[in-house]
């Protein structure tokens, strides 16, 4: 280009507005970077714009980083540009992530690429919100461009071809099928285990600090065939709540009045049709909890209520399956579930439950009171995902002591479990790791 043209171009371009356009796609925008905010609101006239584009043609360059394109920074709102003249990457529809301090932009096509790196014409899926920018003006202001991998919705990442993959999973929302090895550990008797069930939860956010959460478990069953133990639950519903105001607070008037909040994180737990059966040769024993209701008190919990350690205690109405006698029960439990990492790949859970059940109708020997103690603790780890459906490994230890089973001397029994679970659905977490 001739020197006079450079001078003219520089003069024109300094008169043009800078990057920010103020147009917004998708979710509400974060405040744009300082230099973008400083940009004048007026839009360039079309001839000037075209002239700038014309004068800078041939100067466009997209660098390829050493080691290949890198993903856009996680958590930073992306920018998008419609450049009809396709100055960058030969694409008119672009995603960018610009750093105003270094005046560098990562840029990616909004189209998916084929195995040869050519655009397929298919727009990228799972794109997040973006702020509109003008690449011509960015270029005129001296921004440099390098190839990047476009942004994706929270919980998803993109490969170099732009294909989205889910990398965070909400294991509280899934249909699960599981199978594994579940031996009795006292004496080591091998056994298998099969599990099915549906879990879901839904949260209602009233204010930023006030959240209500319902957790649902539906048609869950766990069966160990050789031992003949069947645990099944038709429905379990729980309610938990994070309040913006504490349930009660205490004010002291000794000296300067002071307020002490007492955070009673109360909720409730409801179970309908829970069967705990031992199906043995010629004998079916165990109990069917027709309905049980407990208030719960969280001892520890995460901000999003996904993880908790709590105590609960309440009453239930049972039927002794062997004798068909109706019973009432009181029970108390310490239980918890903890998602260790933000992506939901590691989950710890455990419970310890004590139950006293008593016949409503006395037998000739008088009413029976039967005791039962049981506990489980386990760890679940996502190994891989097939078409965004996770497969996880489960390691679990259990113990129980019960005197409600005929033919079984009260004593401790220990079981272990190592198995795999296939989880269907399992969307990205509501509050993923970012």
């Amino acid at each position: 280009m001739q020197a006079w043209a450079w001078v003219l171009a520089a003069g024109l371009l300094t008169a043009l507005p800078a990057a920010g356009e103020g147009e917004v796609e998708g979710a509400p925008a974060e405040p744009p970077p300082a230099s973008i905010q400083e940009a004048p609101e007026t839009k360039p006239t079309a001839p000037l714009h075209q002239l700038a584009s014309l004068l800078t043609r041939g100067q466009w360059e997209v660098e390829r980083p050493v080691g290949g394109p890198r993903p856009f920074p996680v958590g930073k709102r992306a920018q998008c540009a419609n450049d009809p003249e396709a100055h960058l990457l030969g694409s008119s529809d672009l995603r960018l992530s610009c750093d105003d301090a270094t005046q560098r932009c990562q840029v990616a096509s909004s189209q998916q690429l084929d195995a040869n790196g050519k655009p397929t014409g298919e727009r990228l899926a799972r794109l997040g919100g973006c702020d509109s920018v003008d690449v011509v003006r960015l270029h005129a202001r001296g921004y440099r461009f390098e190839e990047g991998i476009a942004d994706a919705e929270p919980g998803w990442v993109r490969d170099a071809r732009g294909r989205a993959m889910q990398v965070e999973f909400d294991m509280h929302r899934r249909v699960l099928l599981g199978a594994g090895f579940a031996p009795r550990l006292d004496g080591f008797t091998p056994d298998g285990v099969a599990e099915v069930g549906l879990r879901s939860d839904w949260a209602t956010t009233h204010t930023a600090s006030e959240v209500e959460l319902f957790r649902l478990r539906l048609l869950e069953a766990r069966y160990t065939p050789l031992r003949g133990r069947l645990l099944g639950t038709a429905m379990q519903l729980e309610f938990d709540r994070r309040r913006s105001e504490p349930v009660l607070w205490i004010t002291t008037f000794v000296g300067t009045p002071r307020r002490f909040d007492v955070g009673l994180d109360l909720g409730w737990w409801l179970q309908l049709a829970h069967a705990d059966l031992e199906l043995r040769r010629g004998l079916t024993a165990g109990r069917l909890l027709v309905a049980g209701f407990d208030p719960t008190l969280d001892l520890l919990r995460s901000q999003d209520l996904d993880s908790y350690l709590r105590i609960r205690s309440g009453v239930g109405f049972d039927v002794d399956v062997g004798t068909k006698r109706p019973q009432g029960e009181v029970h108390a439990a310490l239980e918890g579930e903890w998602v260790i990492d933000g992506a939901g790949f590691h989950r710890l859970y455990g419970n310890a439950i004590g139950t006293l059940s008593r016949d409503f109708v006395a037998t000739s020997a008088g009413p029976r009171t039967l005791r039962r103690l049981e506990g489980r603790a386990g760890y679940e780890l996502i190994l891989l995902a097939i078409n965004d459906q996770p497969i996880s490994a489960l390691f679990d230890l259990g113990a129980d002591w019960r005197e409600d089973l005929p033919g079984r001397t009260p004593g401790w029994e220990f079981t272990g479990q190592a198995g795999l679970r296939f989880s269907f659905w399992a969307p990205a977490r509501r509050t993923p790791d970012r």
Partner: protein
Amino acid sequence: MAPLAPLLLALRLVAAFGGPSPTGACLAEDPVTQARIRTCFDPLDRLRLSAGATIQPGGPGFALAAELRLRNDRASRGDPSRLWLREQTWLSTTWRPGAAQRLELLTWRGRFIRHVEEGYLLVPTTEPLRLPFPFDVGIEASGPELRGTFAPGHLERLRVGSLGLLLDVARNRDGRVRLAFGPMATATRLDGGPLGAAAWWLVPLTGAQLAARFERDDGRAHVELRGELSRQLSAGLPSAWGGAAQARAEWTPLAVRDLPVSLFGQVQVERDPGRLLTWGSTVGLALGIGG
């Protein structure tokens, strides 16, 4: 007029269920009258009423059946190329009158396949590793299913429910071609039979299911196969094999008021644990309402 009232009401109902208006390639023109003719149907999205002659070990007979089938799909909100293919069967009822009368009722069965353009297996390493995976993944679940007679106490079989995983190798975007298989779990109560007392039989993912279908683009012919084979366990009884398979072929040679009338042939084979293998075949006519 009064005796015709139920018929008129039925015709109005039929007209109301006439299904969506056909468009484009699904419309033809009669060469003589130039009337517009509907030429496409959806055999999996209709109320299906059928009657047919049966052949079974007890001798010939006939069967009446009704079922509501619903098929739709929904694109994933964040990725329109990913589809949830949903097929449901509601209140599938078959009645075989006569001396050996029998009623079969399936309350609900749903099949939910997640179709992706490029199946993959993600290994969550620091840089997630994406490997090709040649299946669509889905689940099939069913609600209570019973078989018995109208007489009290004559419930031969009650399957409380089932849940299974499906891997679909056909990966067809509109679900017209399917070849899917996978493990399944069921819980069934069987009464009577050579075993005498009633017994619960469980399939703790020790069963496999197969679902195959081929459907012409215009929906006027399709072949469907469904089968399962399982090792079933029961308290106090030795484990046993059980299984069932049903194949159906249907062809639509004509339509009345744009409602498809089909010829169908169906064969089913079934064996419950500890029982003899039973089989039956049916040939008949089916009317589709909607779809």
